[in-house]
């Protein structure tokens, strides 16, 4: 089976600093993977590399069958990355933001509507401008705008941050549902107890390197 993510001695430099210093990692389609590690370990850079947003300075990397050296554009269309920011335009309403990102990904009106419903972004909240949302509501709107992309690979950086209990449950069910539908989910989180419910494979990241056992487990 072709891996969803296949990294071999992958190096990514941020300036001169090797944020990833030779990562070997295999992730199978449909897997839920938790990246575990201290702040600054390289989790966020690893997620951004998989999204095609970081340059591969050395080594080899394939995501969803595309070579990250030559086909980053192809990768980007098929992944959803939730980082620390939400990617929402402050002056647009929740519906307008989700519609914009959805239409860019050729989502139908129904898919956009369904995503808003699923994230409970309806009624007055749907018409509220992003600048007036709470941090948790922004996060949910961000999720909705990613959901409409129908991604094959979810890359989630601290997906529960800033969410209340109800929203956290929604996110968990979304992640589970995505994995059940065949999507691959890679997430970085410090909330290990909550993540355990999703039964992920845990990959430890430290000093820009991945625990070699992670590769052995996947192959």
């Amino acid at each position, binding site marked *: 089976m072709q891996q969803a993510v296949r990294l071999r001695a992958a190096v990514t430099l941020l300036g001169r600093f090797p944020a990833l210093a030779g990562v070997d990692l295999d992730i199978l389609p449909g897997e839920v993977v938790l990246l575990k590690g201290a702040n600054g370990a390289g989790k966020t850079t690893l997620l951004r590399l998989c*999204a*095609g*947003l970081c340059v591969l300075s050395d080594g080899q990397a394939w995501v969803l069958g595309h070579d990250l050296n030559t086909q980053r554009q192809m990768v*980007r*269309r098929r*992944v*959803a*990355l939730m*980082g*620390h*920011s*939400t*990617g*929402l*335009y*402050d*002056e*647009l309403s929740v519906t*307008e933001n989700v519609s*914009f*990102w959805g*239409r*860019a*990904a*050729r989502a139908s009106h129904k898919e956009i509507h369904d995503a808003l419903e699923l994230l409970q972004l309806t009624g007055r909240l749907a018409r509220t*401008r992003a600048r007036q949302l709470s941090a948790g509501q922004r996060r949910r709107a961000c999720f909705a*705008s990613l959901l409409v992309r129908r991604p094959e690979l979810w890359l989630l950086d601290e997906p529960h941050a800033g969410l209340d209990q109800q929203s956290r449950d929604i996110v968990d069910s979304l992640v589970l549902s995505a994995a059940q539908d065949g999507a691959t989910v890679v997430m970085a989180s410090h909330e290990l107890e909550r993540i355990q419910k999703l039964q992920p494979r845990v990959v430890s990241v430290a000093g820009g390197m991945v625990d070699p056992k992670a590769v052995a487990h996947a192959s």
Partner: protein
Amino acid sequence: MLRDVWLVVGKDLLIEMRARVGINQIVPFAVIVLLLFAFALDTDQAALRTYAPGLFWVTVLLASLLAIGRSFAVDLADGTSDRLLLSGIEPVAAFLGKVIAIAVQLVVLELLLSLGVLLLFDVSVQRFGLLVSAGLVGALGLAVAGTLYGALVAGLGMRESLLPVLLLPVVAPVMLGATRAFQDAFGVAGAQGWAWLGLLVGFAAIYGLFGALSYGTLLEEA
């Protein structure tokens, strides 16, 4: 691709309409600049009429710096630049969409400033077609070059101060061509207005082509 172009145009214009930065800041700034020119040359009505086209375009150019800077600031806030890269929107479409959105704002600004020039500078329109054509193509030229250089400086520090330094020398042909065309349209000088309009068209075409080819690379660096 056209669908993506209009998607970006719609998004940018909707944001600008909601934020009202154009109405509350850029238009008042441009009107103040125009008024200051009028005060400075008030004692010499003949000079005011002669220099009206140049003063008009200097004002448009200064205001365009604000509009361009604002347009790129919106796309750098809260991770939207990354989202655009991941969105699937072709860089060419993103470029054309931004160019059209900025050009529309500049045309609206030009309409308001034209009224100001007619009232304050005591000029009359002799060639309406030339005036409209030069106004439209001049705005397009500024938007094309502004979008290209706006993307170039977006990824750099001190972009607010860097944009004017880089852009102003580049758009000198627009200033020259548009001013000459307006002089002819206002009948204040014997310039070959339509020929100067050709320069504006050429500028917009060359920078448009260059921008369409390089915008993707510039966005990667932003």
